[in-house]
């Protein structure tokens, strides 16, 4: 082996292990958004000048770990680990009621591990099939963003409201970006917009808390009651392998959902998870089999859609053409001055598809190898500790700090002002009519082409 290859492998495994250890801890805290945690961490790794194999491995291992560990609060506490865990709450709650939270956890984590191992090669393979259309896609970026964005808006919880908001919201975002350009010059902001949208719900709740007329809607009677699942024999001896936990049919469903999510890489990830869950529940008979099969396939989908939504557009086009690529994985596509999309100068140009496949597979294997035994052994005691010791105030303090630091880094004081304004506007529309973050980000990205086409100038 050449020295270069050994170095690259060391970067890949080192970055993947670091991401895994960080996101095992973050993943245990319920409701920690992937966009607000994985994107900033990846951005720092990119900006520090780590080689492309390290940034790719860091991001993929972070995603893999977050979506294995999000099963812990979901199964043990009945609180979603993040938005992607919401579809799994109901079947998890039923197994919890039967006294089987550990089974829910094991099925989710095993489904996730199997999907991870399959999804990197499947996504890269599908991307190389799409790559010949790359030149076409690159010359039609504007209209493609507009069409994909409108479709995403339609599939968001807001439906027609989101479609109606697509252009007006883009105009507002362009106006805010214009304000930043006027102060700073240059092409404007990206990270500040993404973080503002990701933390929108926090801004809206904070504003409501400050308003005497709105506060009553947030007031609660007392401390929140959380029922911790009973102690069950959570593997103390030899751990079963993830694939031996699943039945043949469950493995088959995991494989199918992995292939489907590679092909549907521009769809909303949470929507796909709900869809796969309801299809599985309809096809499998018997409560126990139904619940365990749907949990394993749903968490498989939450992993494989994420991996596909990052790798397919990255390998095929180098353009962030999916909801996850536009939010959680944006720093792999666009992180000035290191990576950029106009012209494309990022992982797409720096690594061959084969390299992406190899480093990607190694990083998810590293993530699984570290996460799986830890989750299986310490899930219950770790969740109990988090619930008793980690205050929501501390989590929100960190999010507020990250927003200010990253947007100040990107755009100075006006960057912070833009991020807060985006958070208020986006958060309000998200909460009020279900115009979700993916649709908002697409609207922002499509807006410059839409506006120059509709209103001229440019």
């Amino acid at each position: 082996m050449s020295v270069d290859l050994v170095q690259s492998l060391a970067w890949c495994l080192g970055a993947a292990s670091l991401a895994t250890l960080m996101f095992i801890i973050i993943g245990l805290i319920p409701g920690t958004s992937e966009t607000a945690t994985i994107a900033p961490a990846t951005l720092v790794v990119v900006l520090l000048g780590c080689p492309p194999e390290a940034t790719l491995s860091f991001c993929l291992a972070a995603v893999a770990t977050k979506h294995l560990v999000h099963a812990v609060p979901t199964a043990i506490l009945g609180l979603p680990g993040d938005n992607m865990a919401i579809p799994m709450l109901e079947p998890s709650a039923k197994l919890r009621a039967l006294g089987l939270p550990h089974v829910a956890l094991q099925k989710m984590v095993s489904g996730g591990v199997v999907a991870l191992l399959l999804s990197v090669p499947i996504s890269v393979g599908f991307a190389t099939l799409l790559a010949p259309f790359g030149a076409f896609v690159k010359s039609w970026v504007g209209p493609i963003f507009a069409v994909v964005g409108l479709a995403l808006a339609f599939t968001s919880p807001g439906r027609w409201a989101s479609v109606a908001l697509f252009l007006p919201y883009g105009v507002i975002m362009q106006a805010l970006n214009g304000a930043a350009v006027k102060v700073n010059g240059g092409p404007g902001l990206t990270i500040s917009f993404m973080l503002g949208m990701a933390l929108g719900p926090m801004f809206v709740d904070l504003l409501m808390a400050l308003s005497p007329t709105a506060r009553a809607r947030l007031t609660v009677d007392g401390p929140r009651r959380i029922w911790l699942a009973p102690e069950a024999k959570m593997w103390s001896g030899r751990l079963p392998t993830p694939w031996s936990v699943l039945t043949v049919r469950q493995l088959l469903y995991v494989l199918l959902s992995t292939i489907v999510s590679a092909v549907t890489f521009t769809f909303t990830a949470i929507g796909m998870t709900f869809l796969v869950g309801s299809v599985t529940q309809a096809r499998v008979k018997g409560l126990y089999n139904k619940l365990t099969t749907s949990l394993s396939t749903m968490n498989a989908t939450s992993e494989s859609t994420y991996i596909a939504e990052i790798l397919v557009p990255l390998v095929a086009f180098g353009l962030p053409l999916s909801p996850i690529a536009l939010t959680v994985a944006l720093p792999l596509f666009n992180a000035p001055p290191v990576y950029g999309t106009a012209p494309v100068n990022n992982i797409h140009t720096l690594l061959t598809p084969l390299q992406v496949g190899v480093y990607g597979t190694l990083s998810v294997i590293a993530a699984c190898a570290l996460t799986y035994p830890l989750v299986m052994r310490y899930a219950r005691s770790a969740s109990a500790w988090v619930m008793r010791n980690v205050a929501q105030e501390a989590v929100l303090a960190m999010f507020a700090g990250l927003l200010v630091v990253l947007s100040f880094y990107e755009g100075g004081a006006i960057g912070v002002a833009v991020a807060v304004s985006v958070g208020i506007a986006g958060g309000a529309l998200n909460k009020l009519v279900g115009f979700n973050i993916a649709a908002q980000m697409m609207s922002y990205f499509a807006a410059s082409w839409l506006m120059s086409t509709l209103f001229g100038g440019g």
Partner: protein
Amino acid sequence: MASRERRLLNIWDDTVDLPALLVSVAGGAALGLAAYKLALAALMARQGETAASLIKAYALLGGVGGCVLAAVLVGLVVKPKRIVETAQASAADQIDLLASLGADPDEERRALETTPPKVIAEMQQLKIHDLFVAFSRGSDAPKP
């Protein structure tokens, strides 16, 4: 703040104390920004020849460190507003429980006949197989 009545609010899906939250959020923002600016100033003074973009990146790492420090400090001072209960809320009749979870005796009986042996073995190991069998037989003699 002991004498004042605590005002608990639900912010982003969890319970917080409003004054504590406002101080925490402002503190997180201030500490993060201060750490970023301090790191930037210190690095600029030290290494004149390093690329400006790399200096900013190291400073960003410092800023993120400030955010994590803020979270740890808040975590040490502010306690969570949660009650963690471990007792199961009245484990009623297991058969009633299955019905409340949306199981249907007829469907379960047919399902048990076609369920693969591996799943049956899994259910036996978890000691819920007998429960499901009893539940599915319950439909032969429906309760009035």
